[in-house]
Structures are given as structure tokens and as C-alpha cells.
């Protein structure tokens, strides 16, 4: 399941929902707000989403991952609103019987979410400026 969260992401809870007693492998990715990005010192950061479409597209990506790879459960939550340095921006977790499927599905969900889910990052820099950030390659 894909979700957006206006509050701090509760990764322990997400992990507990993703673990599966018959799955030996669990892979997760966490994206954190860094104190720097593309050479600029980041002060704070906001994510804006198109919520309805984001949730629809995010769940479509998770369904694709379950279809493509032999995995049991996959969850992804993306933070929206104002974030501070050290906050978690995105969490992706996958349970699978085998590690190969778990790694590939986690990577697939992350990559597709970053490129397809309508969410935009606006950074404020320590020089007082701010701006919309283009996707990193």
C-alpha cells in the first residue's frame, strides 16, 4: 500500500505491517533530508503532492512490483508538507521469500515513485533563497 503522511513517518509501524512470517527476506529503503543537496546548504524542505493522483499512482506501482517480482508484501509512505533536516522523506519496505526479489522490488518501487508519483520538492537554502528542485538522475 502507498500512502502520504503529513506527520513524521513511523517506520517501525510500517515495518511491522510489511513483515510476513513466511518471508525470510526484508529489504527497506529510507530517504532522509540531508543538510546539503547538489552543492547547496539546505535549511528546510517541503514536499507538495497531488494527493488523489499520488495515492492512485503509488498503489499502481506497488501492484506492478507484486506482479513483476515474487514478493509477499510491499509498503511505501511519502512525507508531505514541511520537513526539517534529519526527517525521513520516504520509506519503502518489501518482504519476500528470497533476497533477490526483495531487493529488486524495493528498488523498482523507489525508482518508479520518484519518477511517476506527482510529488514535488521545494528546498529552502541557508542563503535565504528557495526553489523547486529538479529530479536528480
Amino acid at each position: 500500500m502507498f500512502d502520504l503522511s503529513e506527520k513524521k513517518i513511523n517506520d517501525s509501524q510500517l515495518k511491522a505491517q510489511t513483515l510476513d512470517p513466511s518471508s525470510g527476506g526484508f529489504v527497506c529503503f529510507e530517504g532522509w533530508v540531508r543538510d546539503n543537496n547538489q552543492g547547496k546548504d539546505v535549511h528546510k524542505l517541503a514536499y507538495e503532492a497531488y494527493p488523489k493522483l499520488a495515492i492512485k499512482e503509488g498503489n499502481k506501482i506497488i501492484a506492478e512490483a507484486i506482479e513483476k517480482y515474487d514478493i509477499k508484501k510491499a509498503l511505501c509512505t511519502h512525507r508531505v508538507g514541511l520537513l526539517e533536516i534529519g526527517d525521513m522523506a520516504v520509506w519503502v519496505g518489501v518482504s519476500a521469500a528470497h533476497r533477490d526479489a526483495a531487493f529488486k522490488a524495493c528498488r523498482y518501487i523507489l525508482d518508479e515513485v520518484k519518477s511517476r508519483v506527482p510529488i514535488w520538492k521545494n528546498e529552502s537554502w541557508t542563503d535565504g533563497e528557495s526553489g523547486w528542485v529538479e529530479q536528480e538522475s
Partner: protein
Amino acid sequence: MIKIQVLFFGKLKESWGTNKLEVETGSHNIEDLYLELLNKAANIPHKESIKVAINDEFVNWDTTINSGDTIAFLPPASGG
């Protein structure tokens, strides 16, 4: 003429100086509407990078628009 609502996201809000417009238009599809809206834009965004949606669904540029539709213009995602 039909009445529609237009939503702008991310840096496109800066191009049009707003996140929402109520528009009366004679345009029949999204591409025509976009060209019509360009004269209200402060700068011209790179169209190839923009995705479009009608009523919370991704659609193509040649999709027909109808009265009451909510049309969204979305710059490239930058989440994660």
C-alpha cells in the same frame, strides 16, 4: 464555451502565479487549452516535461475536455 478548473503544481504555480484558475474556454482538448493559457504564463515551461491529468487521472494531451472537468498540469515529479 465550457467552464473548467485548472490546477498547477510545483514550479508551474510560479509560471502562472497561482495554483488554480477558473477558466471559460473554447478549447476542445488539453493541448489547445495549454496553448491558450500560455499567454497568462510569466515564463514558458518546457511542454515535453509536463504531464496532464483530468479529474485525478493521467491522460494524453489530445484528450477532449468537458464542462466541469478539473485539468491539472504537472511538472516532472521530484519526490523521494
